[in-house]
Each structure stands twice: as structure tokens, then as C-alpha cells.
């Protein structure tokens, strides 16, 4: 594995830790009744959003999923606007109209989370297509899930991206479940990257809990795409740290498997990289963590004290 600078590793760790803290804090808000609707935590999958987004540039595009907080944060999202959106406030990313499943940051190129599993795949394809028509070197990344890989748009879009040589990276976060249904029950080949070659698409598989492995492969994928050699199918194997959504106890997840993946906690791995490869001190790591925790507190404060959307305004709009 290549060697990375301390600053780079610190940046990755900061993102990993932010996602972790964000999700844990917001789960608390959910349990307090401040957040409503569906909430699908990204806990356990942090390294994927973090590693992939680190390989992108700011004018690239991403599309996200129903489990989308991690992507938004890794893409540089503003925690204040995120929490505010989860609370349905006017100051949120979507002025309280969207909520968890629809957080988007359009101007920054984050085309949004999506309540339709697989719904973001064609959107990402279209972003890549637009960039290609304009002759830009931008890349579009779609974060998708193992469940989405069984939806028709997955194959259709992968095929079109291939036929048109688009700068498109289709990331499958294979956390091995669609709600409670194990991937092995709904497909014969649970190595989902193996579907790429049938479409002539460059396909790779990475350990989705290892942020540097994700980053490296994503970087190569981005390079291919910028050279006009896209698309790339990138499968990242991972596992959730809890049930499907905040209210799912996840009883169907075998204890040993969960323990195994927790022992490969992406946030701990990122910290280890920072300390060992980055030669950072324990104190430096703690400083990052404290800064994140502080930022999170401020975001919650901001969101809680933000105004509700105006009903009158809304009724005028619709």
C-alpha cells in the first residue's frame, strides 16, 4: 500500500469520525422524538463514502442512497444544514421538505439521497453523460447498494455507461442485507462486481471497511474515467453496525458476523492509519475528535433553534 501524508490521513479520519458522531448524535435526537420518518444510519460503512469522496474533486458529482448521511458529510456537507433538515427546519438543506431520505446539496454537486432503492443510478449516469457532452473532465459517482444491484436500472445504466464510455463510477456498498434479506438469498453470485465484465465494464472489489483501500481503488477508477476509459464498477464489501433503520433491532444479523465486522471498525482502522502511518500522536487524534464533537454540538444547537418552515409561505407555493 502506498504511503499517505499525515494531513491526508488526518482528513480521512476527520471525515470518518464525523460520520460516526453525526449518526450517533442524530440517533439520540431520533429517540428523543426530534427526528421523524425513516432514518437509515451509515454506521459501519463510513470508510466507503470517505474513501471514494476523497478521490474526487469538488466539481465532480455524486448521487446517494436512502442511507445517505455519510455521503453528504464526506462530500463536505454542512452539518448544520444536515441536522436542520433531519429536524424538518427551514434552514435545512431542503428547507425541511426533504428529510433524511432526500438530503441534497445541488450547488455542490451532491444530487441527493433517494428514497427509491436504485433511483440514483440513472441520475448519476445522466450527470456523467452531461459532463461528457460538454467535454468536461468531471466524473459522476453513484453510491448504490447491494439491493439496488438487483433492480433493472443497475444493469441498464451500467450497460449504457459502457456503451457510451462515460466517466461514471458505480459504487455498490454491499452490506449484505436488503433490510433483513441476505444477499445470498436473492442472487447466486453475491460478489456483485462480477456482473461488470458481462457488460465489458472494468470491475473491482474492495474491503469497504478499509478507507485507504477504498481510496486507492476509487482513485484508480477516477483516473480511468478522466482518461475516457470509464465507466468502473466498484464493489465495497461491508456490514452495518445495527439494524436497517433506527427502529430495527437487526435480530437477524448473526452475532459473530457483527462482532467480526465491528472488530474491523472503519473508524478505528482510520484512526490506526493516522497514528501508525501518519505518525500522529494520541493527542492529535483526540484534537480532531474534540473538534468534530464541538462542531456537532453546534450543528444540533443551530438546528434545534432554527425556525420551522412557514406554513403560509408553503401554502402560497403549492
Amino acid at each position, binding site marked *: 500500500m502506498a504511503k499517505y501524508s499525515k494531513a491526508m490521513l488526518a482528513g480521512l479520519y476527520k471525515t470518518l469520525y464525523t460520520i460516526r458522531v453525526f449518526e450517533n448524535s442524530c440517533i439520540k435526537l431520533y429517540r428523543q422524538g426530534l427526528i*421523524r*420518518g*425513516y432514518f437509515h444510519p451509515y454506521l459501519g460503512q463510513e470508510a466507503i463514502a470517505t474513501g471514494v469522496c476523497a478521490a474526487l474533486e469538488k466539481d465532480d458529482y455524486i448521487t446517494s442512497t436512502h442511507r445517505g448521511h455519510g455521503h453528504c458529510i464526506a462530500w463536505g456537507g454542512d452539518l448544520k444544514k444536515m441536522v436542520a433538515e433531519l429536524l*424538518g*427546519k427551514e434552514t435545512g438543506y*431542503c428547507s*425541511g*421538505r*426533504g*428529510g433524511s*431520505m*432526500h438530503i441534497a446539496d445541488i450547488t455542490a454537486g451532491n444530487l441527493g439521497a*433517494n*428514497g*427509491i*432503492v*436504485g*433511483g440514483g443510478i440513472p441520475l448519476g449516469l445522466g450527470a456523467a453523460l452531461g459532463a461528457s457532452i460538454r467535454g468536461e473532465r468531471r466524473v459522476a459517482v453513484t453510491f448504490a447498494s447491494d*439491493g*439496488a444491484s*438487483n*433492480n*433493472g436500472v443497475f444493469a441498464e445504466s451500467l450497460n449504457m455507461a459502457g456503451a457510451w464510455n462515460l466517466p461514471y463510477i458505480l459504487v455498490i456498498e454491499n452490506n449484505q442485507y*436488503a*433490510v*433483513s*434479506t441476505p444477499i445470498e*438469498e*436473492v*442472487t447466486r453470485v453475491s460478489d456483485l462486481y462480477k456482473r461488470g465484465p458481462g457488460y465489458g465494464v472494468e470491475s473491482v472489489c474492495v474491503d469497504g471497511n478499509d478507507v485507504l483501500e477504498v481510496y486507492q481503488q476509487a482513485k484508480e477508477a477516477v483516473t480511468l474515467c478522466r482518461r475516457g476509459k470509464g465507466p468502473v464498477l466498484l464493489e465495497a464489501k461491508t456490514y452495518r453496525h445495527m439494524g436497517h433503520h433506527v427502529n430495527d433491532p437487526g435480530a*437477524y444479523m448473526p452475532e459473530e458476523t457483527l462482532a467480526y465486522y465491528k472488530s474491523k471498525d472503519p473508524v478505528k482502522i482510520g484512526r490506526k492509519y493516522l497514528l501508525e502511518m501518519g505518525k500522529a500522536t494520541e493527542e492529535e487524534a483526540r484534537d480532531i475528535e474534540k473538534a468534530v464533537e464541538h462542531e456537532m454540538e453546534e450543528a444540533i444547537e443551530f438546528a434545534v433553534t432554527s425556525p*420551522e*418552515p412557514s*406554513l403560509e409561505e*408553503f*401554502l402560497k*407555493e*403549492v
Partner: protein
Amino acid sequence: MSTTQETAQARTRTIMYREALNEALREEMRRDPKVFLMGEGVAQRGGSYKVTTGLLDEFGPKRVMDTPISEASFVGAGVGAAITGMRPVVEILFVDFAMLALDQIANQAAKFKFITGGKGKVPLVLRTQGGVGSGLAAQHSQSLEALFYHIPGLKLIMPSTPYDAKGLLKSAIREDDPVIFIEHKLLYMTTGEVPEEEYSIELGKADIKRRGTDVTIIAWSHMVLRALAAAEKLAEEGIEAEVFDPRSLVPLDKEMIIDSVKKTENVVIVQEAVRRGGIASDIASIIQAEAFDYLDGPIEILAGKNTPIPFNLNLEKACVPQEEDIIEAVRRMVSGT
């Protein structure tokens, strides 16, 4: 108590809407080995809203199947199985996701019998649920029944009570045409009386959930509960509203609607779906055509706003008709102002 239930002399139990559905499935699966279920999480998880709980245990994995997230294909597989002699009950988790399968629904299931000159049949039930919950936002809150209503070849059922849910689901499973059966997420845990004995309810028969003489409130699915609550309040003011639940939108019990309208001469239609192009408009167009001379004034439609459903709860609430809206509309109409 509703007219239908009045005629049932049976001993009853109080159960939840979702339990009533579960009983209907269980009874029909016991009765007929051709009935089987498929959908996302219907087997191991027993369904997102617990409608299929326990059925995997009783009937095994050949008849209760978890599917991948491949709506178009598993709905289409239901059609293919139905054509070849099975009686599939396919679940789509949210009616919003039925959009992914609409080709198989509208171009295959709905057309097959006609296309084959009546030689083929498609005894398929597509169970799904719609409506606003609380904070599920734009892609998990829609009321899309009007889309199915407009496609010839489909039947469309939307029960509002456990009694109707059970009796209509049993008939839907025995029906030879494809039936879209839309439940409501806010109804699953509501309770009601259901007979001990087996029964079923004929598709296409409306039910008057409350008798009245001053105004006919037509409502279906969750809106029936709002209409009933409104009617109780109105009764305190001396206004007797008839709450009319078509239950079956296709076929629609036009005759019974017209009879009610002729009696009350005032009509409010309450629909959770967005106003534009909803079923309420169609019912209104039928009433004005067939009972024009009986109407005291225009038919009023209370419906959802023409907007996707917002996440924020206050905004969400403003998008669908509330009890107070119904009360006000009826008052306005009856007082003639």
C-alpha cells in the same frame, strides 16, 4: 355500524386491520394451494407492516417468498404465474414503488385477458399500501390509486376497516381479474369487529358507514375514519351526514352512490390523493351527469394539495384533508353559504 356489518349476525372479535389481512391470507392459502405470496420481506420478516407474520412458518418457503428489489420482474412473475394457473398475492411495499412495475401492471396484467379475446385470465392480487404516515416524505407517502383506476382491466379495492379488509381480500384472491388492493399505513393498527365465521365481501359493493340525510360524504381508505369523526361532530350540531365508503373503486357502485345523492342532495367527496386528476373528480363527473337535477349546489371535493408530500409534519398535515376541513365544508354546504 355499517350496513354490511348489520346484516352479519355472527359473533365477532375485535382485531387489527393488519390481523384481518393476515387472516384473509391464511384462510385462502389453506383453502387453495394455488395461492402463494411474494414480495420484499414478506417471508422471514413477516412484512414491513406485519401483515404476513407467521405465514412462512405455516406454508413454507415455496409459498411465501422473499424477493430481491426487482419490482418490475416479480410483479411480472406474478402475472406469469397467474396466467398459468396460480393465484399469486404479490406485495409492493409502498404504492410509490409500484411505479417501477407499472409496465407489467398496465401493459401486461391489465391487458392480457382482453388481448387474448377473453381466453386468458390473470388471477393476481397486488397488495400495497399508500398515504401519508408521519414524515415519510415525497417518495413514501403518495396516494396513487387514480393511476390504476384509469387503466381498464384492473380492479381496485381500498378497504377502510378490518372487516372490509378481510372480506375484500378474500374475494380479491378468488377473483379472476387482476386486483390492485391498496391498504393504508395509518390503518394497520386500527381495530374493528370481524366475525368469528368465515365470510367474504363481494367486490363492487359500496358500504354506507353511517346513515344520514343532510349530506353524502364520499370517502375511502383512511379518509373514511376522518369522515366518520367529522360526522359525529356534525351530528352534535344537528347535521346528519351519510358517510359513503365505495370500498371498491373499480368496479364502482354507481347506483348506490346516486341513490345516496338523490336522498341528501349535497355531496362532499374527500380524497387524500392530490386534487388534480384524482378519483374524486371522476366520481363528481358521474354524479353531475346522472343526478344533475338533484344537486342543491356544486359537489365539493376536499383533496390533497397538488404537491409532493413534504417531510416536515406541519406542512405534511396541510397537504391532506383533516377532520376540521370536512366539518367546515359540510357546514358551508348545508348552511348554503
